[in-house]
């Protein structure tokens, strides 16, 4: 159902709550919140567009967007909509019901979906493997081929990621604080993965930041891969952020990461931004209340729209800010997927956004340029 108003990646949530997706993810989980966020995002865009109408249409108080120092596109014209990116990859999540070398059947509750697998299709479950090697019952995220709605070319099984501050270490297990609104996560490090992880995360001690990709087993993550590299400082002793003089550029290049959809629907196309206006607060702030991180970014709000460009593939997409990333702003790491990003994390994408922009989940990040105010 592609309506007249084309949203980012042509996937629109229903404002009235009616279900419309291919929905392999749990439809009820977080749907109310998603609809509420969608409402807020849409409403704020409308109001912003109204208040920055061009001068000819403006009311007595308006001087037009140009006078406001914003580019004409920056007015967030409702009619301009989001970028048409029909050709970007889409993703579907669900539980594997059956898999063969050519067909994958995913289920979500009572529904089933069949996907043809391309000859080049590969799967990941702690490492690269043939799709047929996946097991029934695995939780999978499937990237669909851009030109075939029911054709899959990439599968990630049971993939998970934990990004946060280590609060406790007990043997080969780490307790990680991901923020006030998320439950403490447990990472189990197996000896064969520990060496690889410690190359990038040498200090697995309380107080230090960690970002590990692995396999979800019930409530714990079996750590397999270091997602990026560890900042050398403890989370409570951030170095002074670099100063920015003059005007902040509209385009900022850095690292785009992804996060697991804990409290949000798996299919939401959104981005968690590291610098939400402190006045509105970040509900996901750490208990420690680190309100300002290493990353100095222009302040935005829920509903602001970013153009996120994958500098490695050239794909770009306009995505609304749907949350904040209190842990992400503590990192001063670099993404090295294609060259070294000039700065740390500028966007923490939802799974769907990350895949839509051509990211490979097991790599943890891609070099990205975000443009604010388009």
């Amino acid at each position, binding site marked *: 159902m592609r309506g007249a108003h084309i949203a980012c990646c042509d996937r*629109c949530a229903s*404002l009235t709550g009616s279900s419309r997706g291919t929905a392999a993810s749990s439809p009820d989980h977080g749907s109310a919140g998603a609809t509420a966020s969608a409402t807020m995002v849409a409403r704020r865009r409308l109001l912003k567009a109204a208040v920055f109408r061009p001068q000819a249409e403006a009311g007595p108080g308006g001087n037009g967007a140009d006078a*406001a120092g914003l580019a004409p596109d920056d007015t967030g014209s409702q009619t301009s909509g989001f970028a048409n990116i029909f050709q970007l990859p889409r993703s579907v*999540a669900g539980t594997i019901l059956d898999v063969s070398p050519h067909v994958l059947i995913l289920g979500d509750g009572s529904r089933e979906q069949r996907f043809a697998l391309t000859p080049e299709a590969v799967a990941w479950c702690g490492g690269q493997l043939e799709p047929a090697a996946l097991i029934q019952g695995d939780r999978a995220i499937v990237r669909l081929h851009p030109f075939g709605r029911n054709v899959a070319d990439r599968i990630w099984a049971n993939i998970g990621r934990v990004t946060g501050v280590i609060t406790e270490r007990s043997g080969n297990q780490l307790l990680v604080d991901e923020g006030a609104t998320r439950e403490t996560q447990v990472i189990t490090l197996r000896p064969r993965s520990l060496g690889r992880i410690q190359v990038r995360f040498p200090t697995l001690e309380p107080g230090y930041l960690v970002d590990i990709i692995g396999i979800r087993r019930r409530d714990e993550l079996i750590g397999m891969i270091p997602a990026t590299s560890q900042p050398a400082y403890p989370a409570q002793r951030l170095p002074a952020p670099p*100063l920015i*003089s003059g005007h902040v550029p509209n385009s900022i290049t850095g690292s785009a990461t992804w996060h697991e959809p804990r409290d949000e629907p798996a299919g939401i*196309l959104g981005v968690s931004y590291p610098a939400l206006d402190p006045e509105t607060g970040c509900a996901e702030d750490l208990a420690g209340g680190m309100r300002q991180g290493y990353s100095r970014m222009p302040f935005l709000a829920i509903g602001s729209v970013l153009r996120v460009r994958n500098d490695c593939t050239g794909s770009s997409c306009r995505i*609304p800010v749907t949350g904040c990333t209190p842990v992400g702003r503590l990192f001063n790491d670099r993404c090295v997927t294609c060259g070294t990003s000039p700065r740390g994390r500028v966007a923490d994408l939802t799974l769907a956004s990350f895949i839509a922009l051509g990211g490979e989940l097991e790599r943890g990040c891609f070099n990205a340029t975000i443009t604010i105010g388009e």
Partner: protein
Amino acid sequence: MTMLHAIREVQIPLLAAMLFGGCAAKVLQMIRAGSAGEHIGPTALFPMHLRRPLAIVLCLVEGGLGVGLLLTAGRFGRNNPADGIRLASCLLFVVATCALIELRQSRPDVGCGCFGDFSTSPVNSRTLARSALLAIASLSTIMLRPITWPRTTAGALGLLAILGAEVLLIGVLSPEVGEGLIRLGYTEPCELRNVPAARTLAVLRRSKHWRRYSGLITSEVPEDVWRELCWRFVVYPARYQDRQTDVVFAVFLQHRRPVVHVALVDSSTGAPLEWPAGKQRTRWPGRAALLGATRSLSPAFNAAEARPAPADLPLSTDL
């Protein structure tokens, strides 16, 4: 004195100054933060338990070589002791250059730590070039005769000119200089400035736009407040021609005479409406009530109360 000889002579005080600078910055950091800067620079390449001792040793070596270079610059310690110190300096800078190349590849996020926590920006080609330049400068001082004061004013001026040119070159190659200059004349861009919402509301209520259209507004408490870059948007519920409307203000975040934009929109559709003719004025409570109203705003907009708007939604739940 040939030009080449003059250039070689200038390197000794310059190298000593650089080594003292590095040592002093690390000592300062130790005093200030209790850290030897082991988390930045090439020491970050070593295991945790070795980093701190290595950082301290590096600091001592820099200080010792700086003293040694100055002491052996003249007649004291000429020949073997002087060349030994200069060779050691050369080795230090060569090793440092190699370590920085390794650091750039394995830890691209880590600064060189050359001047303690002043050198936190990641290692780049300029940092490498500076380190290589200092290695070459150290090499050029080996087998140099003891330094003497220039006998003529022209000779002194020539040395000063060479010194100035090299300092300038090192300054260009030093990322720390740019950061220092930024800190000196820094004013925070409005996009990064934390401006309380209460201040924005106070500014708004002093504006002519507020005086003109506040008569339409039906609530003291804004329905929604959010910020994008240098603008804060404030939405009040209003009533106009027996229909539910919203008055939307956009306030530029500056202290004095901020630009304010305003629009009247239909609550249900979000469509802009024509403004009523004539002025709408009313009296509004003072600052205390204003602050109370601000506090009563939920931290994030209460989305449950938001009315649906038929916009192009960038969200999806169809995964």
